[in-house]
C-alpha cells in the first residue's frame, strides 16, 4: 500500500516538474509551440497582461497579439530555422528576463533567402509553478527592413 502511494506521489512530482519550467525553458517552449502550429500551447505560456513590441508596432493586449500577429509568427516559425546564438537571463523572485539572439535562416515566399539576426527581449512573471511571458520585444539587424520601417520617421 505504502509502495503504491510512493509510486503515485513520485508520478505526481515528476509530472509537476515536467510542467514547471525555468524562464529560459518557457521562452524555448513558446518557440517550440509556434513551430508545432500549437496555437493554444503558445497562448498558454502568455500572461493575460502581455504587451508585445514588435518592429515598432505595439500589441497592447494578449488578445490583440493572438488575433493579429501570433498566426504570422507561427507561419514564420514553420518556414524558417531559428538557431539560438546567445542568451542571458536574470531577475529575481517572480520577475525574470531572458535576452536572446537568434540566427534566422530560410526562404521567403518569393524564394529570397533569409539570413538575419533577430533580437528578443522577454520578461516573465511567476504564476503559480509556472513562469508566463508578460512582454516580448523583437527587432532585427536586417538593414533593408529597418530602412523600410524607419524611413518615414527619418529626415531626408
Amino acid at each position, binding site marked *: 500500500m505504502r509502495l503504491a502511494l510512493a509510486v503515485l506521489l513520485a508520478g505526481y512530482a515528476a509530472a509537476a516538474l515536467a510542467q514547471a519550467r525555468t524562464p529560459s525553458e518557457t521562452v524555448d517552449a513558446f518557440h517550440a509551440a509556434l513551430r508545432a502550429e500549437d496555437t493554444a500551447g503558445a497562448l498558454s505560456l502568455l500572461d493575460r497582461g502581455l504587451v508585445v513590441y514588435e518592429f515598432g508596432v505595439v500589441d497592447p493586449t494578449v488578445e490583440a497579439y493572438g488575433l493579429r500577429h501570433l498566426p504570422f509568427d507561427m507561419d*514564420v516559425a514553420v518556414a524558417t530555422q531559428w538557431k539560438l546564438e546567445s542568451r542571458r537571463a536574470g531577475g529575481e523572485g517572480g520577475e525574470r528576463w531572458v535576452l536572446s539572439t537568434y540566427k534566422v535562416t530560410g526562404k521567403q515566399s518569393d524564394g529570397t533567402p533569409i539570413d538575419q539576426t533577430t533580437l528578443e527581449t522577454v520578461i516573465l512573471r511567476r504564476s503559480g509553478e509556472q513562469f508566463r511571458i508578460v512582454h516580448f520585444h523583437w527587432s532585427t539587424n536586417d538593414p533593408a527592413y529597418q530602412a523600410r*520601417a524607419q524611413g518615414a520617421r527619418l529626415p531626408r
Partner: protein
Amino acid sequence: MNFPGTIRRVRRSLVAGFLFFCSTLALAGHDNIEVDPALKRYAGQITGLGEPDAKGDIYSFRAKRIRADMEFAADELRGWRLTILAGKRFANVFEVRGNTGDEIIVTPAKGPLNGIAVKDVFVVENIPADSAAMR
C-alpha cells in the same frame, strides 16, 4: 447640431482608424519576413451564444469573420481546430463539427463551450483533429 461637420469628423476617424489598422498589418509579426501561411485560418468574433442542451451545455455560437466581408462557407470548417483567444475560455481548444455562414458547432470531444461570451474572438485553423499539434 452641425451634421456635415460631424460626418466629416466621423469619416476622418474611420479613415485614420483604417490606416492605423493597415499600418499595423504591414509591419507587425516577424513580418520583416514574408512567408506562405503554414495553414489556412480565419479569425472571427462571437456574436451570439447557441441554445444550451438539456444539461445546460453550449456547443454552438453565432459568429462573424474578422477582416472579411464574406461569411463562412457551409461546413467549410468541419474538422478544423478552433481556439478561443479571449475571455474565460482563453487558450481553450475545440474541434468544429460543422458550420453555416454565421454559426459554428463544435464536437463534444473537447467539452462544451460554456463560458464563452459575445465579443470573444477566436481563430479556426485547418488542422485535422488527429494532428500532432491538436491539443
